[in-house]
């Protein structure tokens, strides 16, 4: 079974911006063009090895900060500023990675298949934290009672790296949350948390604050525990 790999919350990268995204041993430059479409490339310019997330997005291309080499959304080098009238060789390109956005989270590859109830709910990004703990430890914490913000919620696993807290099917409560875990490498795990509400409702400030506080509590608990 393939396991989902979250990279960030949707609101972590705006149009015409680039950020660093990690998936275990892999570093990516994750960027959004002017239309809002997401792209992920190897985080290393093949010219002189510069990390591309330090670069800039302009005219729907990712540009290296060091010498301005410019890459299109297929990863092909289209322009070398030192030689404006020269067409770059097609051997100069960036490896690209598939990314998708769903339920307020950016996923490497496919998003996980959501339970039907969740798929119908509205998702609002809350907060991401990076904790100094292994994935398994964080997985346990996020599915444990520790995270039961409201007593009316119960844990519903989606896959090894994602899950929800949802109201009992018969209850009147109409809110919950979705979490997605990221192996961020170097012993760190990312937790990306989104609030879930019924499609017509927006998440209340109280609920957003409660979720944010709960995430902080998990971080303190996990990092405080003996390795």
């Amino acid at each position, binding site marked *: 079974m393939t396991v989902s790999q979250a990279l960030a919350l949707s609101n972590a990268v705006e149009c015409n911006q680039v950020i660093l995204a990690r998936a275990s*041993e*892999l*570093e990516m430059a994750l960027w959004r063009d002017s239309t809002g479409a997401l792209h992920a490339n*190897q*985080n*290393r310019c*093949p*010219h*002189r*090895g*510069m*990390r591309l997330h*330090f670069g800039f997005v302009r005219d729907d291309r990712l540009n*290296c*900060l*060091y*010498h*301005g080499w410019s890459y299109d959304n297929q990863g092909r080098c289209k322009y*070398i*500023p*030192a*030689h*404006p009238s*020269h067409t770059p*060789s097609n*051997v*100069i390109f960036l*490896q690209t990675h598939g990314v998708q956005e769903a339920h307020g989270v950016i996923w490497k590859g496919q998003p996980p298949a959501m339970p039907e109830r969740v798929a119908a709910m509205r998702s609002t990004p809350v907060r991401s934290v990076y904790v100094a703990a292994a994935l398994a430890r964080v997985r346990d914490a996020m599915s444990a009672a520790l995270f039961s913000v409201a007593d009316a919620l119960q844990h519903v696993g989606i896959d090894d790296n994602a899950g929800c807290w949802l109201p009992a099917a018969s209850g009147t409560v109409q809110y919950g949350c979705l979490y997605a875990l990221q192996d961020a490498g170097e012993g760190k795990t990312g937790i990306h948390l989104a609030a879930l509400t019924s499609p017509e409702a927006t998440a209340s400030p109280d609920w957003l604050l409660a979720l944010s506080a709960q995430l902080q509590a998990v971080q303190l608990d996990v990092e405080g525990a003996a390795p």
Partner: protein
Amino acid sequence: MTKTTDPIALREWIVIGAITDVQQGVPYRTQVLGQEIVCLRDGDAFEVREAGSDLQPQRQVQVRTRYGHVWICFAEVPRPMIEVREFDDPRRRMITWGGVYVRTSPQRLVENFLDMGHFPFVHTGILGAEPVTEIRDYKVEVRAEDAEIRATECMFYQPRASMAADIGRDTSYIYRTSGPFVVVLYKTAEEEGEFDNIGMLVQPLDEEHCRVFGYTLLLEADTTDTEALHFQQTVFLQDRLILEQQTPRRIPLYEKNEIPARADAASIGYRRWLRAVGMQFGVLPQQAKEGASQ
């Protein structure tokens, strides 16, 4: 790390500090090519020894002072130091930059210093600015007998080439790379027909960590030392951001790892020379694959 065994690195004169950094009677401890050393000053006499794991002084190494800095060499027969005649010019005054710690290999630092292509992007509004990004062809000559790579006829438009510049102008550069750790450049000065002289002197602590020293020989009477130093530090700190984000830190010498453009002729010449002499220190082993450090 222990002291490197690379003879190409060991035969070099290497800067360990500005002369004024080493105080009388106070042991000055630092690291060169992986080896801890200690320098003692008595008047204008300097003595440098390797330090053991207990930091006790051991084998004595050669030391000399020149160009405002203290230099050492581990080998018995050092490769001769670069000759910079401008130091004999009484109209010029020298400022030293102070040591800046940078997490990268000495060769990445040298290449950055040789490179004009980054001026509009890294030193925006100072040494370059879009849309003037084109690098016109220039000449590169490898003088193997002197371990010198010389890049000449380099021209670049600069909005503010120095502290004394108040308008943009075409600036002409000549670069002289001397061995793996030293680069001296000449660039058009504000005074008609004159060239400023600037040198970067890299102290490799180990393969991936350096301290960078340097000097500027100023002709500009209207610029204070402090102003010139601030200008230099502004520019260099912009470079450091880049240098610490290049992967891998050790320099790859093969084009399958990093693809150059024609504008990189000076860097190509430098890498070719590093390959020709078989340099190992600070160099990515050949079998390492693209992206292995990601």
